[in-house]
């Protein structure tokens, strides 16, 4: 923490570039533990950490060059988190109060997260800013989360504290905001830390970049423990000699639950690379896996694509990926080519394609819903395109030459979970019929925090979670065929159409319900965001100014380019209740631009 404080006057430098000389030769935590491995089965996060702290494994953080930056054994994590919890307890907040933390890949974040649990508070991770020119919009997004969660405390390290201080201004619920360094100056209260109850909220997970309607998923200790147990026992079959490597952001469910919490509840070591460092030099992740003989590492398909694009032949010689037994793939729809390209490229570096482990999940079900069978690689099904579109039915391809779609087998639900496919009226469909994917089980959220409207859209009667995804079941295995039109996935990022429309509607020239956003797919599988606006402006410079401004705003908020189309009023199709239909708006756009082969089955039905 002292190194953080010395950097107070140098905001441009990463706080962790500075290392006292005594820390120059850090040794990462070992793979093999001195403790008998327990595969989850704990009742709360803190009880899991109390056990893990008896061993010698833990978390390791690496810099962009691949050097160990800091080491946080579970034992130290427990000590530091407990002391921090006693400092936070000095605020005397009611149990369950929310604590917001800007989550970069750092030991401080993990310590604060567990400190909150020890103190009976509810932490949540906020993203780091990643887009060019995004300062103002990022601050708005932070403020949206702080207000929606009614957070009492907000924390950010020295690199992000300026943004946080701007964001907390005027947020009435905030009692204190500062850096971990400042928190460490507060007195340690003599409060006796109490064990948590399985029914209390463990954390919130925000899933939307909206400034007006952020959605914080409420996950209880029970849901978390249930999901973790399924992941580590049934999904991954974790063993004592496993070790993980991860670049996934701590503010995403897969990064936090899958690669921070799951390793801890099985007492295995993890090697972390910051997301930014991976994005710029993706091979550093593979080098970590190779050098530390890591066995488990997850990625979105986009991360694998980055590795495939960036690797040079000379890099392959220095890599040995034969240790990698579980290459988990999730968080966006999986295209088989992405995996094939990766395994072809890295086969000579020892990568075994049977390590591919496609899975399906979402933050609203803690993390995981289904896992394919471990050690079986990626299996897919080729189905006839025409039958799929015309009849919403997946028929296995009988003859070559017909137009086909290939879908990845995402496997079966974790124990205690059921997946069903329903039609637009909510009736359950039989196998091979394509419809909305619904999930039920103990991992499902209790709702979105303080947001009954969004909660009632996502949780249907009987506590069935509507995932927003479209797919079918075949012999009990789940195949995802697409998303409904309310979410657009670009380069691995999930972007809600509603959030883009909201940005547009904040412009003085755009009235509410006159903007529609959706994604169109290119032949190479890339997705482009299209924003159609009903526009009354007639002068060319004014129209151009609106288009440019909208493109810039979308880029700042979501880091993606978009196409803006201005159309005359009353062009966008509406439903009988006056709501815009994104599906129909997309069909209209495709017809206007003559991209007719885009008219597809995969995205239908607006939420």
């Amino acid at each position, binding site marked *: 923490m002292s190194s953080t404080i010395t950097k107070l006057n*140098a*905001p*441009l*430098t*990463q706080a962790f*570039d500075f290392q006292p000389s005594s820390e120059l030769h850090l040794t990462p935590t070992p793979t093999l533990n001195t403790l008998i491995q327990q595969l989850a089965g704990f009742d709360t996060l803190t009880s899991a950490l109390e056990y893990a702290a008896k061993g010698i494994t833990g978390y390791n953080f690496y810099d*962009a060059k691949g050097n160990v930056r800091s080491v946080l054994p579970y034992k130290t994590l427990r000590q530091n988190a407990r002391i921090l919890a006693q400092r936070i307890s000095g605020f005397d907040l009611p149990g369950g109060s929310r604590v917001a933390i800007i989550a970069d890949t750092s030991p401080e974040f993990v310590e604060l997260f567990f400190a909150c649990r020890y103190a009976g508070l509810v932490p949540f991770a906020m993203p*780091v*800013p*990643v*887009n*060019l*020119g*995004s*300062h103002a919009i*990022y601050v708005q997004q932070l403020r949206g989360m702080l207000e929606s969660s009614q957070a009492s405390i907000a924390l950010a390290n020295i*690199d*992000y504290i*300026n*943004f946080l201080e701007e964001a907390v201004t005027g947020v009435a619920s905030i009692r204190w905001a500062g850096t971990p360094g400042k928190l460490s100056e507060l007195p340690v209260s003599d409060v006796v830390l109490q064990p948590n109850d399985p029914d209390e909220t463990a954390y919130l997970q925000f899933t939307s970049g909206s400034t007006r309607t952020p959605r914080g998923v409420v996950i209880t200790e029970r849901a978390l423990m249930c999901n973790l147990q399924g992941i580590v026992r049934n999904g991954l079959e974790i063993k004592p000699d496993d070790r993980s490597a991860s670049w996934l952001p701590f503010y995403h469910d897969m990064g936090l639950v899958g690669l921070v919490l799951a390793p801890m509840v099985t007492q295995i070591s993890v090697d972390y690379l910051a997301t*930014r460092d991976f*994005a*710029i*030099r993706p091979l550093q992740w593979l080098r970590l896996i190779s050098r530390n003989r890591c066995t488990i590492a997850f990625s979105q398909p986009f991360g694998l694509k*980055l590795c495939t694009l960036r690797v040079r032949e000379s890099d392959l010689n220095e890599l040995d990926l034969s240790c990698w037994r579980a290459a988990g793939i999730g968080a966006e729809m999986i295209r088989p080519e992405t995996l094939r390209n990766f395994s072809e490229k890295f086969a000579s570096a020892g990568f075994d394609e049977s390590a591919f482990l496609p899975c399906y999940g979402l933050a609203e079900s803690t993390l995981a819903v289904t896992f394919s069978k471990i050690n079986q690689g990626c299996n897919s099904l080729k189905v006839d395109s025409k039958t799929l579109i015309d009849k919403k039915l997946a028929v296995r391809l009988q003859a070559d030459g017909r137009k086909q779609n290939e879908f990845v087998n995402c496997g079966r639900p974790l124990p205690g979970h059921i997946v069903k496919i329903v039609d637009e009226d909510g009736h359950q469909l039989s196998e091979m019929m394509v419809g909305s994917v619904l999930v039920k089980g103990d991992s499902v959220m209790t709702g979105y925090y303080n947001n009954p409207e969004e909660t009632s859209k996502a949780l249907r009667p009987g506590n069935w979670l509507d995932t927003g995804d479209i797919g079918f079941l075949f012999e009990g295995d789940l195949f995802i065929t697409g998303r409904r039109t309310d979410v657009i996935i670009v*380069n691995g990022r999930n972007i809600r159409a509603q959030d883009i429309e909201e940005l547009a509607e904040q412009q003085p020239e755009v009235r509410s319900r006159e903007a529609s956003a959706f994604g169109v797919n290119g032949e190479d599988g890339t997705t482009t965001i299209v924003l159609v606006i009903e526009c009354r402006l007639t002068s060319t410079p004014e129209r151009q100014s609106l288009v*440019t401004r909208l*493109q*810039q705003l979308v*880029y*700042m908020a979501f*880091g*993606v*380019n978009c196409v803006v189309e201005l159309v005359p009023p009353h062009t966008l199709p509406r439903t009988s209740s006056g709501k815009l239909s994104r599906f129909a708006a997309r069909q209209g756009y495709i017809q206007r631009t003559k991209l007719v082969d885009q008219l597809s089955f995969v995205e239908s039905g607006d939420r």
Partner: protein
Amino acid sequence: MTESNYDEIMQLLCDRLRDLASTDVLITPETNLINQLSIDSIKLLNLIMEIEDTFDISIPINALTDVQTVGELVDLVHKIKTTSS
């Protein structure tokens, strides 16, 4: 390179951006990276990697949030370069 002055950095970045840009535009310090050059996230990552390697610096992610134009990017690189060497 050990010593870089402002003009050198400007020249290097303009050359590089001309290659990356999808459209044929004249690049000036006022050129907007986002809506005039359409630098998407993948191009941006490539650009940052090249800048870091060329100038032997590390660009903190939080600093890019205040960069929208070519001039602002050059200012940032120059500032980091002069404070780190």
